[in-house]
């Protein structure tokens, strides 16, 4: 009995967390006639990939996928490069101002993006990056960089000091130590941190909404938001296609997350719980 209720609770939790995604999936493989039919069918009677075909032949959406990938990759590359250097300094060096810098970085991880929207907007206009992808690559550093620095600093701190010492005794410069000894050791941490930062970029909406202007520069969140606003072309709001697009956009992420779930959990909680 106790076991039964435990598993009932489990089912309930799994149902609650997975159902909306299931529903998006079911809606995406229903033909239009079933999507807009009442009563609603809980599974499709004649499943079809039509919605996926339409989404994948939608050049605007594909462009958004490319844009998002480019913005995220570039932003994460920069965040990991700059962030790991800073984390090396913060994690392995002792100097005045270190604690203050750590405080600064930690508070920056909670920085409200909306607070710099106006100022950032002005800068982006000044340097002629308006409606250009690099504007997003740069502005996403606002949240990816502090996050990367913070998490990687914790990882650097955990590395045993003997390695570094041995390298220096062998005549390696700090940069060589960093590149040839420490970075390889930290590569799992870099992958995890990179993935988490990537997800943050992939999910970003406010800046994409405010800085990108033409449909050929939309990121995926922006494109899916506007999916709802399409008027006058079809005969209904393309809920089926929208759900198909949602599935397409989240599926790769989901697979990655599930494969790397242990590391992600470590990375996510490592930064916060260890304080």
């Amino acid at each position, binding site marked *: 009995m106790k076991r039964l209720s435990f598993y009932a609770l489990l089912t309930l939790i799994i149902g609650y967390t997975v159902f909306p995604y299931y529903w998006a999936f079911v809606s995406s493989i229903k033909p239009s006639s079933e999507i807009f039919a009442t009563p609603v069918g809980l599974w499709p009677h004649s499943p079809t990939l039509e919605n996926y075909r339409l989404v994948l032949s939608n050049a*605007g959406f594909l462009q958004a996928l490319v844009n998002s990938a*480019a913005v995220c990759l570039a932003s994460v590359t920069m965040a990991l490069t700059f962030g790991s250097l800073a984390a090396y300094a913060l994690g392995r060096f002792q100097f005045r101002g270190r604690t203050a810098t750590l405080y600064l970085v930690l508070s920056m991880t909670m920085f409200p993006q909306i607070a710099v929207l106006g100022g950032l907007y002005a800068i982006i*206009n000044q340097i002629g990056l308006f409606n250009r992808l690099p504007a997003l690559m740069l502005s996403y550093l606002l949240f990816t960089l502090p996050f990367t620095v913070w998490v990687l600093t914790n990882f650097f*701190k955990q*590395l045993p*000091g003997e390695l570094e010492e041995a390298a220096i005794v062998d005549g390696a410069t700090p940069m060589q130590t960093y*590149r040839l000894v420490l970075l390889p050791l930290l590569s799992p941490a870099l992958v995890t941190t990179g993935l988490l930062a990537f997800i943050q970029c992939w999910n970003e909406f406010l800046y994409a909404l405010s800085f990108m202007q033409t449909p050929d520069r939309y990121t995926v969140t922006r494109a899916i938001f506007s999916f709802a606003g399409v008027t006058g072309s079809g005969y209904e709001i393309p809920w089926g296609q929208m759900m198909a697009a949602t599935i397409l956009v989240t599926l790769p992420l989901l697979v990655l997350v599930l494969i790397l779930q242990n590391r992600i959990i470590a990375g996510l909680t490592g930064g916060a719980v260890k304080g």
Partner: protein
Amino acid sequence: MGTSLACAHTRKLAPLAEQAQYLALPRVELTVFVVRALLWVGFIVFLANLTVPAPPPSTSATLRTTPPPVPRPDRRWAGTTLTYYGERPGFGMAFERALLRQFEQDTGIRVNYIPRPLSASECYASYQRVFQARSPDVDVMMVDVVWPGALAPHLVPLSLSTEGFLPQLVENSMVDGKLVAMPGYLGAGLLYYRTDLLQRYGYEGPPRSFDELEQMAKSIQAGEKPVNPRFVGFVWQGYTYEGLTCNALEWQVSQGGGQMLDQVDSPEALRAFSRAAGWIGTISPAGVTGYQEEDVRNVFEGGNAAFMRHWPYCYASGNAPGSPVKGRFEVAPLPGASVLGGWEWAVSAYSRHPQAAEQLVAYQTCLPVQRWRAVEGAFLPTRPELYKDPELLERMPFCAIMPEVFRQAITRPSTRCRDLYNEASSIYFQGVATVLQGGDPAASMGRVRRDLSELMQP
């Protein structure tokens, strides 16, 4: 704990660190490291840009005829290239492409066509940014009828003739006595009604007043609801956006409530808004305050409503093959006033080729093109004389009522508000939305009037 270990190390390492070669290298190495990362970023940007010339979005519209030639083509600017923000992705693109091909052929001017952003408010924001930068990147652009007032400082005064155009629209495009945009096609609020249902419940024709509309919607809904639990009497655009300004302004003006800027809290206006609030949950669905154009159309075209307030384009989609209401609905003028919408063509003040640009504007709005667009794609012309055209009437029989609609057509006060229109409209529709949510009409709209007059103070 890790840190204390590291600290111990740092201290031990200090003498080592004094060696000169220890610091000589890092700067170069660091730079190389950072530069390499930036090169990667540059490579990613480069790759992303490589893929940018995306194949144009597919269009479903197939055209039966080619567009008319340019009337009096002027080849003086042959060879120049114009950048043009034209029809948004979707239905209009096929028309745009055909027209531009014809224009390029006849004038020798090349046109680089960029589809404008999908939603009007995004489009407006992007124009503002282009103008902010005084960018010569755009020569010609499509502008919504509510924008000329705001965008006028950045638009070239046109020297084209407005003879034969609908006077309300011409007036709307004149700022400080200068014509800054040419009306190309229009929209107007219309009342769609189900002919079969009206007949079944014994009504001779569409309602002529909001009282009649309410009463008819109520009795049809009472009769239909037992059969179809999702059936409602009347649907309209109630989401908090520009569409609500159109709907609310129609209620207000139709029922003697005066104008949007000065008399929003007149007793008549308050009555009109309270009346609309009373529809929610009775003749209109509770969800109507979440409805934009397409939600409204879904309900009506699904056969789930007796009346609908909408723009003209639903006439075509409602009669498309497979539509459940095909042949079972008609269009009438709204009881009272009807808000004019639509799109105009304008030339950027920062354009390097204003004369060539004006040619394109002239072509897009000339009589033969307006007629072609109407016959091919049901875009409503801005020249009233075309509504007598037999071919047009055959294609869109409801056009016969348009002269009557135009008599009562109103424009939103965009020319007067200039660059404050967006904000004025937001104050207005947010106030109306408060009343629709059950807020006190007098208090809410009183506040709207105060906010509006404060906003409009120089």
